[in-house]
């Protein structure tokens, strides 16, 4: 049974760009061999680690969204554990959570539409309506982190 997983791995800062891409091809090969697909790959680039791992203070983060079976993820997990270049990795199953999120979103927009119609308004929010709509996303500092942790 195919499920959706997210795999994030942290590559040692000493690794060259070729080694990072090489690692990606290795993962890809494993995925393809076991009849999975890679849906998305994201390289977050080099980031500072929140704490030292081994003696490393930085790491290159790579995110892969994979469709596949549990056995496939087990195999990837096992392989990544063996590779010394990967200093940390995490596999998370996301399909169920995503389904819940989508359903909540759908339900919410549906109720809002129904209520708006009941109030005699057009079902969708008009541009420039409400106080929240005109807040620029970039200026939104509600989730800004503290300086010392930046």
């Amino acid at each position, binding site marked *: 049974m195919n499920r959706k997983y997210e795999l994030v791995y942290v590559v040692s800062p000493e690794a060259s760009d070729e080694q990072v891409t090489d690692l990606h091809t290795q993962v890809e090969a494993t995925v393809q061999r076991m009849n999975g697909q890679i849906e998305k790959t994201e390289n977050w680039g080099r980031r500072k680690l929140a704490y030292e791992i081994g003696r490393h203070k930085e790491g290159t983060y790579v995110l892969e969204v994979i469709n596949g079976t549990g056995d496939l993820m087990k195999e990837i997990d096992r392989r990544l554990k063996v590779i010394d270049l990967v200093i940390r990795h995490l596999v998370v199953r996301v399909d169920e959570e995503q389904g819940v999120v989508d359903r909540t979103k759908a339900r919410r927009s549906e109720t809002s539409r129904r209520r708006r119609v009941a109030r005699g308004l057009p079902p969708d929010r008009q541009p420039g309506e409400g106080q929240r709509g005109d807040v620029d996303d970039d200026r939104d500092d509600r989730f*800004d982190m503290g300086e010392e942790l930046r």
Partner: protein
Amino acid sequence: MNGRKSFGGGGGRGKSTTGAQGKDGQRRPMFRRRKVCKFCSDKIDDINYKDVRMLMPFVPERAKVLPRRISGTCALHQRKLRTAIMRARQLALIPYTTE
């Protein structure tokens, strides 16, 4: 008469008031703003471990998870927040602790 007058405890919903003793012994009600769950009010369904910017306000200096009693997060979202923080910690996106 609706019997909604409350003394001290038993605030329940709505603005909670706590009696504070003034300097001259006068009873002055102290108003505290009712805390609301940030995720409910902002309609954020997906608390993701990858979004460090979003998680950071919930891990103050000592990098501990901010308790519900302070942040006002609802139980459901606090639970999701906790898993997200734990995952982010594993990937060294958020510290476990600070010296």
